[in-house]
């Protein structure tokens, strides 16, 4: 099927627009963050939460909806993120239309889709948070930061023109396996950011920590997203193995990409175990989650670009 360059052009345009919108939303979040008064009780709440794992529900200081500047700015940041996600979705859809298949066969397409999943997951998490959303919302800028960086890299260094698939990638398994991998990676990005912030906030009483969502919320977001992503990641690996059986002659060959995906899986299994092991909840578990995402990123960039394996991507 021939590539439609006009449609591809509009896809690129939407990509750029989404990137700019994410950037603006991130700036708004930063403004919200900096004009939010430092709550006094949170530091104490943090100590309680850290201390015994059980929770004191200290009413968050902003639970009385004080619709001041931070609130307004924060809400517009979320609205802008919502708009950006729609524009970004159209970029993915147009790219798919231009090539007539799912648009994830090279690193540019892959990165773009991961970022989209991450932001969409972030919005869902925010929505499901309901009344506590104000506190959680301050996570927004920190979720958008890696998204903006990744999308910038995707649009510059990794950018590749739309191209048909090489024979070994040309299989319906690319839809199944890669979609699952992308979904899991995007959700785990949100999880990793939440755990990273948990760790940043862990030293009780730090000024940064005081403005962040409270540690219980961060911990819960990290855990719940990881719990959703882990079975999807498991499925992605299994689907990859089934595809490998059809394409390379064995379902598991210790190819660097496979091995690294397994390592990440084992690390996340470690995270889930740590959450169920006395003495490992809280910061140690959060560290494991962050390491898990580091392995995912490493697998996505370093292994693809530097370590050559059977997993080669067209256009990088």
């Amino acid at each position, binding site marked *: 099927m021939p590539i439609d360059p006009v449609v591809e052009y509009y896809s690129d345009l939407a990509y750029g627009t989404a990137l700019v919108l994410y950037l603006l939303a991130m700036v708004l979040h930063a403004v919200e963050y900096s004009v939010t008064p430092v709550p006094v009780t949170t530091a104490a709440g943090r100590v309680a939460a850290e201390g015994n794992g059980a929770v004191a529900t200290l009413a968050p200081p902003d639970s009385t909806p004080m619709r001041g500047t931070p609130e307004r700015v924060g809400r517009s940041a979320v609205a802008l993120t919502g708009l950006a996600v729609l524009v970004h979705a159209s970029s993915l859809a147009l790219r798919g239309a231009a090539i007539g298949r799912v648009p994830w066969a090279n690193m540019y397409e892959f990165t773009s889709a991961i970022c989209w999943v991450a932001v969409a997951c972030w919005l869902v998490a925010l929505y499901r948070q309901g009344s506590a959303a104000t506190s959680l919302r301050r996570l927004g800028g920190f979720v958008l930061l890696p998204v903006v960086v990744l999308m910038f890299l995707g649009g510059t260094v990794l950018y590749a023109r739309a191209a048909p698939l*090489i024979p070994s990638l040309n299989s319906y398994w690319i839809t199944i396996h890669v979609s699952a991998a992308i979904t899991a990676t995007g959700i785990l990005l949100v999880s990793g950011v939440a755990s990273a912030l948990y760790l940043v906030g862990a030293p009780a009483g730090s000024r940064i920590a005081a403005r962040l969502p409270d540690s219980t919320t961060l911990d*819960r977001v990290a855990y719940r997203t990881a719990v959703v992503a882990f079975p999807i990641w498991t499925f992605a690996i299994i689907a990859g193995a089934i595809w490998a059986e059809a394409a390379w002659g*064995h379902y598991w060959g*210790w190819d660097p990409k496979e*091995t690294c995906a397994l390592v990440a899986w084992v690390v996340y299994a470690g995270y889930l175990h740590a959450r169920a092991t006395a003495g490992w909840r809280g910061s140690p578990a959060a560290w494991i989650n962050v390491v898990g995402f580091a392995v995912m990123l490493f697998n996505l960039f370093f292994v693809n670009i530097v370590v050559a394996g059977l997993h080669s991507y067209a256009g990088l």
Partner: protein
Amino acid sequence: MNRLTQLTALARNTWRGLTSMRTALALLFLLALGALPGALLPQYSLNAQRVRTYQAQHPTLAPVLDRLGFFEVFASPWFAAIYLLLFVSLVGCVVPRSIDYARQLRRPPVATPRNLGRLPHHAVSESASTPAEVIATARRRLRGWRIAEGEEHGSVRTLSAERGYLREAGNLVFHVALLGLLVSFAIGKLVGYEGQVIVLANGSQFCNSGSLAYDSFRPGRSVDGTALTPFCVQVNGFTPTYQPTGAPQDYRAAITYQAPGDIAPGTWHPYLLKVNDPLRIGGTRVYLLGHGYAPQFTVTFPDGQQRSAVVQWPPVELATMLSEGTTKFDPPGVTDDAARRTGQLAITGLFAPTAAFRGSLLSSAFPDMLDPAVAIDVLKGDLGNNSGRGQSIFSIDQSMVDSGRLKQVARQNLRPGQQLTLPDRTVVHFDGVTRFVSLQVSYDPTQLWVLGFAVLVLGGLGLSLTVKRRRLWVRVTPGELAGTVVELGGLARTEAAGYGEEFEQIAADLLPPGRAQPPVPTVLSKEGR
């Protein structure tokens, strides 16, 4: 103290330590850490050539790494040790938990705690109904829960309910299936094999008669390469399609094959072998892995005798399929060994499917065969095939050239149909090109087991991560004058929070606001454990 008790205590403690959650965590990390060099360093089993390159580049570090087994991580003893310990830990963890789970299934839910107010979820209200009515309503509302009724003194009645037992079942299935997966994987490695072979796409045949039929063969430990499933494949043609840019789009090999039962009657079945679509003959699979070109040369010796040869020249540049190789000839009719060893010929050089010349330097402009040409050196002398060293069919023995026993006698670019004449009037004619395909044959009888366990792993995981284990207690105390006081307590036994909403819903159903009686129902939900 008795030695024996000491020993048993030691054994018990070791076993406890090994099967504790902490050890499992530590072993999981060791596994992750141990697998990393396997991903980052070149591995013998994947690409021995790259290991050698790495070793040449890191002359001091590489021997140490090699001793530690870092170039063959997944076959190294220490990796096996981690794997085995994890395995033991897993068994030690799963067995007692399964027994415990079976017991739990037979036991009624835990009796109602004395002070429900201290539970994370709690609600009280007064109701006009009688205690018996309240209990009946609660039973109806809690359909699907495991329920046990109790009585306390003062005609206080209680109800204990629990739900979400499938979570633990899912978790156990997950861990047991993981064990099964590891075992089937290991067995598959033991009894399976993989072999690769190059077959000319001009009607040539490959028969799975034994390991010697392959160019390279990797058997499992218990495979000796003799009792392979007999089948034959004949490759009749190979058709690639390319984008205008030269990017490959599709590869197809037209083959016919004989399954084990077809060999005696001599029946052949046609099949179109494609990438991502292997030929499956029983449990044995045949894959199309790659392709390339095999130039054909005919040499006419001064005495008029002719010899032809078609030898695959493997691609050196995948994007353009520029290929490199060697075709070797023995002088015909020479029985004297010394004479033979001065008259051997080697044609070595480059083949381009679409020739592009820079001066007289040959390169390839496109991977498909649009305008083929070769750039060859012809060498004459001793090829060294009697030297005892292993001979590659793809290259000449450079030491023979270095020692002057093999000399270059001509260098020329040829297109199909062209020829060159050597000083001794030997004529080398470039006849044309045949395509070849490289096939892989794989046999792994346990792979369906692995798949089955993988599906169980996934299913168990899904249950275990979505089902919430939670408890609910109801205490019904007759009121001082009339009506009853109904108290509810709830506890989520698992991490996944979100019991709060369900609890509130149950509380709202069981504790009707009554006739504006104080106290109004209070629902206290402390989220977040």
